[in-house]
């Protein structure tokens, strides 16, 4: 029973990681870019949300309504000001630029919000749970998972069915051929990053509701997102989603074995996947 409980909690934790991983999978798929400041953006949005909530007395839903458009704008700005200049074959410029951005963001947040951990008051929702067959399931983690499923499903549908999704996939597979057919890659890239960071708007609200956030936490979120993407296998948003589930379960089981082992268990599963199935558990070889 104890392990079944860990499995359930792991899947629920995976819902959180899926929300980080989707944006990373999208950006890498389209531009072959890894945004090192991905995790710091989650933290930045969380801290902005917490400040909004405390100074205007907003509830979690209102904070989300404010954060998601803000995140979309932030992503668009990031692409226009920084990433469009560093997209290319060579991975070095984009890595260095976003690495510098991460360093600057982290320390800027440290100055504005200090090193303290904060969280978003959820009006009781964060502590509610239901008991099913002897297992307590938190209401908030279920909502997080449901939103993660909805986001993944929506993103997948958009990529497959819409005109914009086709443009994205075309730019991802061959940017020159795509631009010959009348697609403006810069515009496509800007929208992809806007969507990727926009999803982090949701993640930020949930992250600050279910636990605390501090300016230095961004690196860990980046690593979880990355591990989810690699474990799941590149090339599909569902792969990233399933990878996040595997990572969440690995961590939850690790925590049951020993509290100091939880995060490490996730890393070990990641390394095992890399050793045995480098294309990812659900990726095509």
């Amino acid at each position, binding site marked *: 029973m104890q392990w079944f409980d860990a499995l359930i909690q792991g899947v629920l934790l995976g819902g959180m990681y899926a929300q980080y991983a989707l944006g990373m999978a999208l950006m890498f798929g389209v531009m072959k870019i890894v945004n*090192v400041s991905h995790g710091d953006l989650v933290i930045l949005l969380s801290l902005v949300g917490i400040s909004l909530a405390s100074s205007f007395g907003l509830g979690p839903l209102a904070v989300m309504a404010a954060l998601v458009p803000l995140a979309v704008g932030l992503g668009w700005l990031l692409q226009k000001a920084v990433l469009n200049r560093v997209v290319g074959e060579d991975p070095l410029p984009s890595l260095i630029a976003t690495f510098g951005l991460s360093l600057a963001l982290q*320390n800027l947040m440290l100055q504005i919000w200090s090193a303290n951990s904060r969280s978003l008051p959820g009006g009781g929702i964060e502590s509610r749970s239901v008991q099913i067959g002897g297992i307590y399931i938190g209401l908030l983690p279920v909502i997080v998972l449901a939103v993660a499923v909805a986001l993944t499903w929506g993103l997948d549908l958009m990529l497959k069915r819409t005109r914009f999704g086709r443009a994205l996939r075309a730019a991802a597979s061959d940017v020159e051929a795509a631009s010959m057919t009348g697609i403006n890659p810069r515009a496509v890239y800007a929208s992809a990053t806007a969507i990727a960071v926009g999803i982090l708007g949701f993640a930020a609200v949930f992250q600050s509701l279910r636990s605390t956030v501090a300016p230095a936490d961004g*690196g860990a979120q980046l690593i979880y997102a990355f591990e989810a993407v690699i474990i799941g296998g*590149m090339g599909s948003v569902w792969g990233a989603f399933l990878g996040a589930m595997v990572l969440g379960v690995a961590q939850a089981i690790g925590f049951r074995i020993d509290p100091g082992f939880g995060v490490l268990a996730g890393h070990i599963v990641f390394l095992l996947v890399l050793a045995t199935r480098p294309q990812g558990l659900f990726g095509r070889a």
Partner: protein
Amino acid sequence: MVAMMPMQVSIRRQTASGRVALALFVLAVIGLAAMPWWARTGTIRMVLELCCYIAVAQMWNLLAGYAGLVSVGQQAFMGAAGYALFVLAQTFGVNPFLAVFLSLLVPLVLAVPCYLLLHRLDGPYFAIGTWVVAEVFRLVASNLSWVNAGAGMSLSVMKDYSAFQRNIAMSLFCALLVLVSIGGSYWFLRSRFGLALIAMRDNPVAAASQGVNVRRLRFLIYVAAAVGCGLVGAVYFMAQLRINPPSAFDPMWSNLAIFIVMVGGIASIEGVLIGTLIYFIADRWFGEYGASYFVVLGVMTVLVALYARTGIWGMISKRWDAPWFPIRRHLVLERDKP
């Protein structure tokens, strides 16, 4: 009379500026080794830190600038060698100065499986992968009881040596760090392997078509950089006398290596020296401003990546062709002498 004469071609590899720089370099290494006789302990410690920056930055430069392997996790090998030193000297009673060299075996052995796993990751993912490896090392060290887990270890055996003896050791290690990282890279880049490495830096596919074994060379550079970073770690923590997981695997080392190399000028030894000097002076002057100082460093890194990829040395060498460490081969035509 315009028949084609067989042309005499010679290769010029050294320049006047290079000779001057080489002489200065030798003097600097001698000066470093002789520090106990002209510097105080405080100065020696400061210079040791400077030498560590130079060596770490040059290792990162070899990886990112020449081999095309961007790593943000070299601190993994610094911490591993640092811990190996503490275990050897403190737990097993090995002479600490000898243990510095023995501890290099640990990064050497660890780098092989790390690379075999990480090289499967695509360009930018490789970088994040190296970070995961560093995190794994940190978490393992935090959980291992025989390295005293999260509490860390002290190198109290150093009490057996007088302050002067320790100063001699630190000075010799300073000289060794600079000699190995700068002198070693210079020698390596001028060798046959260096030629292959430079070809690979300019275009890996073209280099492979010319017979350069790109995969093997990348592997060798990764392992060499791991051992180099290990040496820095062992020396640094020997001087610190204390080690614990957060300090041993501090990502700050990656931050500073990236800043130094990018601002100074990537893929050049001169850039590393310029970048280190800038970082070191900035750290001494503005370090007290803490967070806002790092914001400026971060923004500068972004600006260099966006607008000045070749860094300061790239701008200088575009104007004046006077390399300090010339690695190019110039073909010089010589008139046939009767």
